[in-house]
């Protein structure tokens, strides 16, 4: 009972951040919702064994792994936990208003496009540090790098992002 409540609190606290992280890596708002659901389904399956002190870092790790799996596997043969959900008659609900905003807002579109020009590590630093507004310490924990490195990368990322946006 307690575990379920903890899980719900975790979902409500972090699912938007995971959604944004996935959205900015896939640029597909519907897929981002699917993957977010799948991330939390996977996490729930291991909930009893997870050290919730590091839950945020763990969620990003699972999100990254689900995204990699999604793009690696052949879409015709893969069997995902999300598919298990749909077989149970459960499909994620898509926030249509938000999807419309993401697709139509010019400024969001501009920054989202610009982010795709950054290398993996620079993009991740921008998403974690500025989109999801994590501290340099939290960002470092998730990426497995020091706080100093996070600061160096954020400087390079912002510089490059500014250049890309001004040249667009």
């Amino acid at each position, binding site marked *: *009972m307690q575990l*379920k*409540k903890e899980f*719900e609190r975790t979902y*409500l606290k972090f*699912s*938007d951040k995971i*959604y*944004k992280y996935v959205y900015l*890596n*896939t*640029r*597909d708002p519907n897929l981002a*919702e*699917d993957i977010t659901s799948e991330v*939390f*389904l996977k996490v*729930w399956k291991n909930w009893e064994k997870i050290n919730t002190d590091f839950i945020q870092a763990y969620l990003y790790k699972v999100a990254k792994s689900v*995204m990699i799996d999604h*793009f690696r596997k052949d*879409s015709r043969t893969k069997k995902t936990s*999300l*598919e298990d*959900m*749909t077989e149970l008659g459960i*499909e*994620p*609900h*898509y*926030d*249509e208003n*938000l999807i419309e*905003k993401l697709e139509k807002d010019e400024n*969001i579109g501009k*920054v989202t*496009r610009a982010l*795709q*020009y*950054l*290398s*993996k*590590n*620079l*993009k991740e630093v921008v998403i974690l*540090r*500025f*989109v999801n*507004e994590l*501290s340099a310490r939290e960002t470092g924990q998730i990426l497995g790098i020091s706080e100093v490195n996070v*600061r*160096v990368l*954020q*400087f*390079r990322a*912002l*510089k*490059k*992002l*500014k250049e890309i*946006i001004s040249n667009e």
Partner: protein
Amino acid sequence: MNDLENIIKELKQSGASAKEAEELGLLSKNISNLYRFERSQFTKTSFLLHFPGHGEGLRYSKWLILSFMAIILMLSAGSYTIVDAQNSLPGDLLYPVKRLTENIVSAVNPSFSGQMLKRRSEEIKALSAQNNSSNLQGTINDYEQTLNKNNKINLRSVEQSAQNLEEASKSASLNNKPEIEKVILQTDNKQKQLEQQYENKTMDREGHNGDFWNNGKD
């Protein structure tokens, strides 16, 4: 939350000039403001409510939904259960209950149309195996309507439906086969269309190979 002054300070420590640090700091704040949105409460509640073995904290709303469903059940199907109805086929006594519950769910959640498409394809498969021609044509029409008049269908549901239709075609009688093959063709087209949309959205516009973790060359 990252404070602008702190970001500027960090940027200066990383080698930025005062002016550059200020400009980049403002850019970082603009990015934060731009993406400071949340998915609707309904989207989140919907996930938790339908979560397998879950939803303890939402017991009250779940109970309300179940009560509502129970009223429909009593009105429409006497002592049968809605769960039974979900396995019914066209022509069965409980089939209208199944369609009614689908309409209720899809009114609340438009993305349920993918699941509806899959259900129609499963029905076609079952009716074809039973050689139940009288109900098959109507179900094929329903399938076509769901496929063509809905833009909320996801690729996965279309793929699963295509598989069901292939199996239906294998067991179909000579009379029913052409109709099933017609919807297989439509399903293939829809699948290609969705794959194309999906590819357009996910592939990097500068020609990366789909491995989004390695794009860029910084």
